[in-house]
């Protein structure tokens, strides 16, 4: 049978009413757990996987796909509405998405996120189906030096996109970097900056930091304004649905996000959040409405959300073609596959085509089901914002701590939540941007580890870093991204750029 016939067969099986019901249940359950801040798709799938064991292979694959997509989308909803990113890949969504929600544009933000996720998921799943064996050949060429070059590119593009003050943006980034070295150094096993506290040995959890800085820091900041602000936010200004302009401004970011997210997801050490960072930086450079960035630009939601979903499908490329679980979610999926006697590996496509295509078909169905479930609910979701402030913010804190406790029921983790919440508050008071702290925390260790791996492999030879063609190209792009804005500024177009670098707060 050809690729296409297998896919068609899988789709037909997945379209049976009972299987559609399983998909719906999976999406609902996944969303329910995935909305908890701090509980990303990996934990959601791990917690709900046993539920799928009782079904037949087709049904359980479909429910599994539903849980996976539901878990991912749940994080975006709370990022946009409550400013509590559920996982590291939806941190960027919170930046513009929550600003939109505050301005009464929560509906279009949720819609562009849902439709963007769907479009990206659809394209990426098709890319997975037809190009996986070729994509993986390129992905496997990425070694430590190539990843290091990619991280340098991410640093350059992302750090130029934050804040209206170079001093405060850089300070926030370096604070994040300083936190990122806490814990056991992975390459040598040495502890750094843990001060003998066992809870710090694994480092600082990105989601704890993000939830604390965004949700708790902001709650404190709003509380400290006293009774000055209005009691409630106006939930809907204009239409709850996307208008023509929203569509016109969204479709290109969706496609660009997909193009950025898919290959990065396919790289064994890429990571979904890198794709969202790069997509955000790209949209900020290309937008015709730079003044809106930092105040709720729809492109800043559409691009990263698409990138996030595309990279999730990208993760399946090494998993299905090589049996490489490259993310926590993929590792848990692998455990799930074993239930059906499926041993992902290089021979999987050849030995088990029914199941592989069944899975791909299930992903397509679950992706569609997500849209079916969420679009009608948008009207209901945005009503959340009309809750009076005292109840809204107590609810947010209950919710934020619930996620943290669910992921790790430790008092120490709650203490970190409070500490970083206070830090987030102080930074807001002094006009520091928040996002660079989280960016530093995520990118710092990745860049450091890859640099040190590369140097260890070359036994200290620095030229090794630049002698691979892929790494060299990435370094050149990074250098251009750094130098071109400088030249533009010298040529007197600086005001355009400083306008583009509007503060996120």
């Amino acid at each position, binding site marked *: 049978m050809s690729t296409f016939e297998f896919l068609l067969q899988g789709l037909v099986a997945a379209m049976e009413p009972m299987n559609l019901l399983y998909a719906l249940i999976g999406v609902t*359950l996944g969303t*329910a757990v995935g909305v908890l801040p701090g509980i990303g798709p990996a934990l959601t799938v791990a917690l709900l996987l046993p539920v799928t064991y009782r079904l037949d292979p087709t049904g359980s694959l479909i429910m599994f796909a539903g849980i996976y997509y539901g878990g991912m989308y749940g994080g975006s909803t709370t990022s946009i509405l409550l400013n509590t990113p559920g996982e590291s890949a939806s941190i960027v969504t919170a930046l513009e998405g929550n600003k939109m929600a505050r301005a009464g544009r929560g509906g279009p933000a949720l819609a562009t996120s849902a439709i963007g996720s769907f479009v990206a998921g659809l394209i990426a799943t098709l890319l997975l189906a037809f190009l996986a064996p070729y994509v993986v050949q390129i992905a496997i060429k990425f070694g430590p030096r190539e990843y290091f070059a990619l991280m340098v590119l991410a640093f350059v593009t992302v750090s130029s996109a934050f804040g209206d*003050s170079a001093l405060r943006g850089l300070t926030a980034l370096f604070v994040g970097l300083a936190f990122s070295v806490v814990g056991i150094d992975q390459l040598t096993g040495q502890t750094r900056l843990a001060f003998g506290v066992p809870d710090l040995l694994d480092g600082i959890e990105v989601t704890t930091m993000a939830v604390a800085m965004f949700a708790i820091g902001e709650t404190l900041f709003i509380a400290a304004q006293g009774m000055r602000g209005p009691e409630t936010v106006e939930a809907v200004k204009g239409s709850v649905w996307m208008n023509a302009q929203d569509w016109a401004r969204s479709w290109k970011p969706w496609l660009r996000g997909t193009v950025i997210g898919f290959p990065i997801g396919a790289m064994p050490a890429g990571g979904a959040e890198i794709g969202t960072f790069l997509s955000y930086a790209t949209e900020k450079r290309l937008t015709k409405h730079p003044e809106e960035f930092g105040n709720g630009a729809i492109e800043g939601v559409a691009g990263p959300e698409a990138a996030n979903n595309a990279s999730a499908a990208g993760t399946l490329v090494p998993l299905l073609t090589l049996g490489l679980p490259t993310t926590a979610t993929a590792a848990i999926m692998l455990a799930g596959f074993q239930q059906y006697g499926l041993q992902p590996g290089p021979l999987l496509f050849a030995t088990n085509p029914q199941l592989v295509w069944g899975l791909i078909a299930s992903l397509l169905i679950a992706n569609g089901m997500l849209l079916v479930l969420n679009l009608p609910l948008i009207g209901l979701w945005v009503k959340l914002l009309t809750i009076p402030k005292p109840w809204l*913010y107590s609810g947010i804190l209950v919710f934020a701590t619930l996620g943290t406790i669910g992921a790790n029921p430790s*008092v120490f983790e709650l203490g970190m939540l409070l500490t970083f919440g206070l830090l987030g508050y102080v930074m807001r008071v002094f006009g520091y941007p928040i996002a660079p702290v989280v960016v530093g925390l995520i990118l710092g260790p990745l860049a450091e580890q890859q640099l040190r791996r590369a140097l260890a492999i070359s036994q200290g030879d620095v030229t090794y870093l630049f002698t691979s063609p892929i790494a060299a190209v990435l370094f050149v792009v990074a250098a251009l991204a750094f130098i071109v804005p400088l030249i533009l500024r010298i040529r007197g177009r600086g005001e355009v750029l400083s306008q583009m670098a509007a503060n996120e707060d």
Partner: protein
Amino acid sequence: MSLNHPTSTTKQRRPDWAALAIAVVLAVIAAVIFFDVARVKGAAGYSQVGPATVPEWIAFGLIGLAVWTAIEAFRGEFPVRDRQELGPIVWVVAGLIAQMLLLNRAGFSIATGVLFALVAAGFGRRKLWLTIPIGIILCLCIWLIFAGLLQLSLPAGPLEHLFL
């Protein structure tokens, strides 16, 4: 180098003490990093960039930023800050601390219910005799859904044990 908008800046005669304090904090963090990673310097292996190198780069960066911050503080280039009310902050922080203390003793519902009530108090709803029970009942429902139905491990206390 600074890209501050002129509107958000006031030219003060005397230094901005709070901003100076930030500069000091940054310098202190840098010092702590230098002090702590001195222990692990020897363990580099084959890469000349060892476990101490990158933290040191970060610490140098922080020192540079501390100096820069101090200069802006003396020039009074930090943005004007709104008046902050401390009362509500104390309520919210008290709520989070209460939750931490109660979580493993009284269980999820009571601890988080108290957090709910204290945060609401921070936003002006001070009827604790009403909000604490409401919060506890709400959190018990949450517990039943997430711990009972969805298998999340949330600490159980006397209230939860009634349903276990």
